[in-house]
């Protein structure tokens, strides 16, 4: 399979061509946000640990908004290997760091919750939230990449991501997505999270496709003023 061989050959160069530092810093900060207070024995209730884990997920996903940055986009965008594959590889580069960051944070949170807190931390559902936030960041970045063919994407995608996540975090009352672990709506809200994950994934895939041809509009009738060298008008130009 050519596709498989291309993918395999691309892994190394893609790894080196992708911006790693925001990713690593994001994952590290995310892990530290939970690991540090957990190791320091900070006395928090289960809602606070859940809140810290959610913030960790948001920070870890921020780094992914920079992975599609490509200074040579002008060259790479017209090569046969599809945009979807190039993007998928770059996102795949982001996955291990983000997953490790989340695992570290989740493990620390779990340890504390098991030993100190009576109510459950509900880690599977929080992991669903984290995965959704990650995929949402990917979808936003891929969408911004369509609008910025010059390849400097993160500089716009990161603020857009922050705004979107901030808006989700601020959703009031019944519309709230980040509900307390003790909330009666927990299961209901996590069905919405699941739905959001599916929507974000589909959006990321759709947006990663090659841009289709632009919308067709009214055909401007402009006189053809081309002059062929054998045109008798050649000598009549003023």
């Amino acid at each position, binding site marked *: 399979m050519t596709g498989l061989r291309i993918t395999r050959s691309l892994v190394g160069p893609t790894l080196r061509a992708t911006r790693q530092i*925001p990713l690593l*810093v994001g994952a590290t900060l995310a892990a530290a*946000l939970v690991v540090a207070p957990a190791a320091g024995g*900070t*006395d928090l*209730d289960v809602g*606070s640990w859940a*809140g810290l884990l959610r913030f960790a997920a948001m920070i870890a996903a921020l780094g992914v908004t920079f992975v599609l940055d490509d200074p040579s986009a002008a060259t790479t965008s017209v090569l046969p290997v599809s945009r979807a594959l190039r993007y998928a590889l770059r996102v795949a580069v982001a996955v291990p760091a983000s997953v490790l960051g989340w695992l570290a944070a989740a493990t620390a949170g779990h340890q504390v919750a098991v030993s100190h807190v009576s109510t459950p931390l509900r880690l599977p559902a929080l992991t669903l939230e984290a995965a959704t936030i990650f995929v949402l960041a990917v979808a936003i970045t891929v969408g911004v990449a369509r609008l910025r063919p010059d390849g400097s994407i993160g500089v716009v995608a990161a*603020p857009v991501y*922050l705004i979107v996540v901030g808006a989700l975090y601020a959703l009031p009352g019944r519309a709230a997505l980040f509900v307390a672990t003790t909330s009666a709506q927990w299961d209901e809200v996590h069905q919405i999270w699941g739905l959001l994950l599916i929507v974000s994934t589909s959006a990321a895939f759709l947006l990663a496709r090659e841009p289709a041809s632009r919308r067709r509009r009214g055909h401007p009738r402009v006189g053809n003023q081309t002059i062929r060298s054998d045109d008798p008008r050649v000598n009549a130009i003023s």
Partner: protein
Amino acid sequence: MSAPAAVHAPSPDTGTATAARPAPGRACLALARVEAVRLARHPAVLVGIAAYLIPWGYSWATQGPAGRFPVLQDSDRGTQIRLLPLALATLLAANLATLRPVQNGTQPLLDVLVLPSRHRAAAMLAALVPIGLIAAALVGARIAVLAARPGASGAPSAFELACGPAMVLLLGALGVLLGELFRSPAVAPLASVVLAVLILAALLPGRLADSSAQWLLPLASRPDGSPPLPAGLLGRPAGWHLAYLVGLTALLVAAVLAVSRGRGAALGTVAAGGLALTVAAGVLQLRSPSGDLMMARSEATYQPASRQTCEHRGTLAYCVFPAFTPQIAGWDGVVHGILRRTPPEVMKQPWTIRQRVWAISAQSGGGLAPEVPAAQWRADDLRHGTPGAVPVATNWNDDDSVLGLAGQLAYRVVLGANVTAPTGATVVCEARGALMIWLAGQATARSRHGLDSRVSGSTGGVTIPTGGFDSGYDIPTRALTLGLRMLAQPADVIADRVLRSWPELTAAGTTFERVGALLGVEVPPADQDGVCP
């Protein structure tokens, strides 16, 4: 240069020559103006402004009559967290503006232009001032709109109001500094998310939120939803916190200028002043509340009568902490809504409504009291000749407080004016509970709304809150259900029957079946939860 300029004959184009070579300060100002316009029109900043306005508009559209009773010494600090998105947006936008030469590759060109880099940095910092003014205008607009409400009580603190715009300036300066220090556009988003997380994490319930260390963050206003304290009891070091923010901003300004090759005594002064202010104000804001303040808080909690003024309306007395008088207009409807359903001998009693507040625990006045100090209240009320005063919370903008007043008045109307304030352990097991539910629920639309939210948020029975306190008295399921069935009937029909059978309905030992028969309401089956024998 030995030849003085005056030796040269003034040429006709002196004016244009001066205009072509303005002083660096004026060039700096001109640049600042351009950058300020770009900042103010930056999408992130526009989103930040929208993030301030949209929740405001949302609550304005959905709040209804509750919005008529803001407490200004509470609302002032509420503007701070509302400005957090704008502050973070300013960080991002100022950082991008600082990075623009690097991102667009114009750095080599700018490096050889007349205006030195420190002036460009200074212009960037100066461009933040209009954003700060926009923030101040947003704060001013909100507090002005709130103060114009007919039920607005209290007075805002200028320091609290200034803290939000100061935070916007501080984070903007941080964005400029990060841009001068790091060339990556990823730094500012990371910094802003970390800051946001620290600030929001400090608002999560836990040790950090209760400790004074939260004052070291740019934003220290926990929107805990607990009833507001009288302004004199708040004890928030808002003035020191503002000085701390200003000091930090000065430090950042000095750092920006130092990084962009600024020199001179002025820079040293700014740095030293900023450092001194930051350290001094930073330490002073962390002091624990003074003994006098603790005394005053304790008195307001346990013996509030001497700190309150009372307004008499007929046989009724409404007692409030200073500056809370506008809330009385709200109470009146509830009190009359209940008393009109009672026999004349109950209606004519000298009812006193008294504000209650829990001022003991947290610095911000937050924290919900575990126990109603019923005994102290009783003694205090007896001393001031208002036995059986009905407690009411200080936040009349909350339907739960309305239910609290209605429920507490209903409790005393049914059980007699001299009954002790109910505590957390009080359960009204008899059919009289249904009457209390009916009285409280039918008083006003807001008390009904408060009851409905309480009922939908709980399983089994319902707790009627004591003003300002988390505890109250419990109505078990059967009485609650009967009360709700009474509320479902036409109010005037039920009211007639209630008045006719008042003595029997309020007597101890009247069975549910008897009440059902008297009122013509179907009686729910007996409780299975075992709360009442």
